[in-house]
């Protein structure tokens, strides 16, 4: 357990020392939102649909960028080998990496939500409180998926194209459910009314966290 905490603490510390993961996530989110404002001419409308959709587009693309950089810190000086060599078991390493990725994504999403409210003519009200759990479930699922996939994408020649090609279709159920639930939340609906969508997101998260936990050992490392 303490090794798990040590890895998370190490990643958080590295981030505070100029890791720039959260910064990259936020920057990408903002850029995507800006592009969408112009692409959808959002200036003249006030719509929960559009805002929720834009937010999730920003989340997916910034998440991909973030994941591509994620294992970079471990590649410097071969630190990943130091981890694999140690008594730390790969499943625990996965859990720790997942937790760190989730924290970064959650922080960046908070920033993205603020931008969304500003750019898409919404209000800072209680609907954001109902939005929060939806976004957390989404970030958790995406982090689980991306942590598992990005561990191995470094070995392929396709480089950074392969992560989005894999991640986007696999993330679709959470994306569909997330946008629907987010729209409902922003429109003032209760969490109970979107329970179907939430159940899908929870199932998605459980599936990918479990799969990642069990399968990470097969993809991490170099042979």
């Amino acid at each position: 357990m303490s090794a798990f905490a040590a890895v998370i603490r190490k990643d958080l510390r590295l981030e505070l020392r100029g890791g720039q993961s959260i910064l990259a996530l936020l920057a990408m989110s903002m850029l995507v939102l800006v592009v969408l404002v112009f692409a959808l001419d959002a200036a003249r409308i006030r719509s929960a649909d559009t805002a929720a959709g834009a937010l999730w587009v920003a989340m997916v693309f910034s998440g991909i960028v973030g994941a591509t950089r994620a294992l970079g810190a471990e590649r410097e000086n071969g630190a990943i080998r130091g981890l694999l060599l140690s008594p730390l078991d790969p499943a625990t390493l996965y859990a720790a990496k997942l937790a760190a990725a989730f924290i970064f994504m959650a922080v960046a999403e908070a920033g993205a939500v603020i931008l969304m409210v500003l750019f898409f003519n919404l209000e800072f009200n209680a609907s954001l409180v109902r939005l929060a759990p939806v976004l957390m479930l989404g970030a958790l699922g995406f982090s689980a998926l991306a942590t598992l996939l990005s561990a191995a994408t470094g070995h392929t020649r396709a480089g950074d194209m392969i992560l989005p090609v894999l991640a986007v279709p696999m993330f679709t159920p959470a994306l569909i459910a997330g946008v629907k639930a987010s729209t409902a939340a922003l429109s003032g609906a209760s969490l109970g009314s979107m329970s179907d969508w939430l159940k899908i997101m929870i199932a998605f998260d459980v599936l990918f966290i479990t799969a990642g936990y069990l399968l990470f050992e097969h993809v991490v490392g170099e042979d």
Partner: protein
Amino acid sequence: MDTATRDYLTPDPLPSVSQTRGKGNNRGSWFGFATLALMIAALFMIFDYVPTEIDEGIVQRIFYFHVPCAWVAFAAFGLVAVAGMLYLWLGDQIWDDLGYAGAETGMIFCTLMLVSGSLWARPIWGVWWTWDSRLTTTFILWLMYCGYLMIRASADDTPQIARFAAVVGIVAALDVPIVIVSVRLWRTIHPAVLVTKQGGHGLQDPRMIATLLVSLAAMTALWGWLLMIRFAQLRTRTRLNTVAMQIEFAHAAAGDQRPIG
């Protein structure tokens, strides 16, 4: 620490030429002829035997291609996942070869399903593509096939890549049920003529059911035949690699001092 050498075990003897002919090839040809027969039967039934459907007219006959392709695409994906699990568990290259062959052949049928779906949608609904639940799900499946094949195509065939592909195959297959549920909840405008979960279907005439079943058998046979061929190719490639390594080790045992690389 000592470095005593030991007797090196002789590598597996290569099969003689006469052994490579015969069995495998004969089995393949038999299966190929059976597939051909089934396909001819299916084509006859689709274009001549089965009555024209009332609502959609002649175009509806695409249904008898479209649905079996879908079945094969999903079944192939299941095979990729199972082969992946066996590969990770047992480590034998044969499972990796099977998974790869399954993905390549399954991709063909997934693409055919999308194309036939599009050809069907155009006359019926007036658009080239529609995001109804079944087409959407298949498209996502198609994208996952693309990702799997991209992994394979983009790197050399190391055990590492094979493991990555296996993991992706497993996770994607586990994801498919969630995709189906979420997409179905999201949208449904597919005509009720297809077999639905309740078990009912819009196929009024028993000849339609028969045609569908024969077409299903034909498509599955076609897939099986392509799978066998591709699988055999990959097995041969694996064996060649093994033999090359064994030659290398035999040189080593004979005291070969050739430099590395």
